[in-house]
């Protein structure tokens, strides 16, 4: 059973780490600046498309180095984590990360929505897209956490980005055929099991896609994926030992 007394400690350690990382701070400041620039240069609607597709990556960036680096540093062999509490700490980090980045993107969404309301461009579907983007972000935290048991120092994030690149290249090849996968994705209608499985596989590595209307239906898959990654992390943590 998770020791809830660890949450304040986990929250403080995680929050301080995010604020101490130049990468997360620069990315966290650059993202709203980029959206503002797109909104001014083009339109609020274009900026909204970028916002909903890109903000789940904030979770991915924050989820680098979550497990392996901590283990290898020896910092978990501390009085704070006696009696196997280091396992609970690593698991609770998922929630601390999701909470910290969730608060950041919620703040951005409020500002972004205020901008949309002021310019009469806000749409109610944006709330649904934001909720689905949050789900995709939480899934990133879970998935990067699983990978972080095996890969160190940001390699988990890099591995996931490479998988996404490979999936997108494969997708571009499919677009050369007359009724390619892109056409199905644009229409939101996937004829046959093959195209549905392909879409499911794509969403598994690129969950941001669920914010687009045509792939709404795969939100349940991302939710299931989130549950699965947390379950796998729980199992990996239970088997974990320090100082072998």
């Amino acid at each position, binding site marked *: 059973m998770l020791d809830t007394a660890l949450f304040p400690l986990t929250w403080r350690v995680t929050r301080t780490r995010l604020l*101490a990382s130049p990468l997360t701070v620069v990315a966290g400041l650059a993202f709203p600046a980029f959206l503002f620039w797109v909104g001014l240069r083009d339109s609020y609607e274009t900026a909204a498309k970028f916002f909903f597709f890109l903000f789940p990556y904030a979770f991915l960036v924050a989820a680098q180095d979550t497990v392996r680096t901590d283990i290898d540093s020896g910092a978990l062999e*501390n*009085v*704070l984590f*006696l009696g196997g509490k*280091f396992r609970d700490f690593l698991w609770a980090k998922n929630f601390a990360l999701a909470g910290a980045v969730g608060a950041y993107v919620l703040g951005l969404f409020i500002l972004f929505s205020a901008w949309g309301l002021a310019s009469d461009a806000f749409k109610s579907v944006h709330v649904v897209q934001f909720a689905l983007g949050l789900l995709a972000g939480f899934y990133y935290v879970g998935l990067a956490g699983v990978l972080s048991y095996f890969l160190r120092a940001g390699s988990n994030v890099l591995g996931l980005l490479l998988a996404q690149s490979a999936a997108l290249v494969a997708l571009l090849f499919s677009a050369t055929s007359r009724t390619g996968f892109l056409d199905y994705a644009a229409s939101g209608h996937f004829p046959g099991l093959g195209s549905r499985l392909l879409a499911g596989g794509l969403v598994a590595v690129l969950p941001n896609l669920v914010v687009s209307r045509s792939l709404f239906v795969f939100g349940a898959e991302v939710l299931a994926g989130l549950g699965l990654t947390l379950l796998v992390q729980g199992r990996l943590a239970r088997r974990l030992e320090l100082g072998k």
Partner: protein
Amino acid sequence: MIEAHRLSKKFGSVQALRDVSFKIRKGAITAMLGENGAGKTTTLKVVLGFLRPNSGNVTVAPGRVGYVPDRPAYFPWLDGRTILDLAAGRASGNGTDSRARVLAVARNLLFDPALLRRRPGTYSAGNAKKFAYLQNLVAGPDLLVVDEPFSALDPPSIKCVRDIFVELRDAGTTVLLSSHMLSEMERIADGFIVLRRGTAIAHAGIKEWRLLRSARTAPDLESVFLRLAGS
């Protein structure tokens, strides 16, 4: 306070511990002795829950447990003050009572409190060790487990730490030490556990140890240890 029963631990094909059993009574200083690779640190880590034994079990009486590792490591982005706050279970705020206690313990350890503004990763090895003691002692442990208690410390600090162990024992705290410094252990320990190649080969209180010394006509703990360890 601690009761270990037939602990065994394997790392791949290496048998690190084999049927290690011992009892450590409350309010005593017990020294765990052994050559490099004898299984001392592994035993401590099993007692503390960092490692799981393949067989056997260990029982630790309820209470606050402290741990000072041989080479302490910390999250590199936290400063000393924050780590002390976390150790004291206070995720926010700085109480004046706690500050006074930190200053008192730091003085006893010859640790400069100004260092708390810095990250422990920037400390010297000796100060990092003292900080590990500080982190544990401000919380007032019922059991303190220390791996190589005097490593990286200068002679004045060694004396201070030795005095702290005696004060802790007198206050009822149980202290378990793993060390190579036999002369220091002989001065403060109430009992000894000797490990050799993952097996506990001797477990004795100070009186039995002295009898053992005289029976073997050994002048000091080192001579007895070397004979037991077969070195």
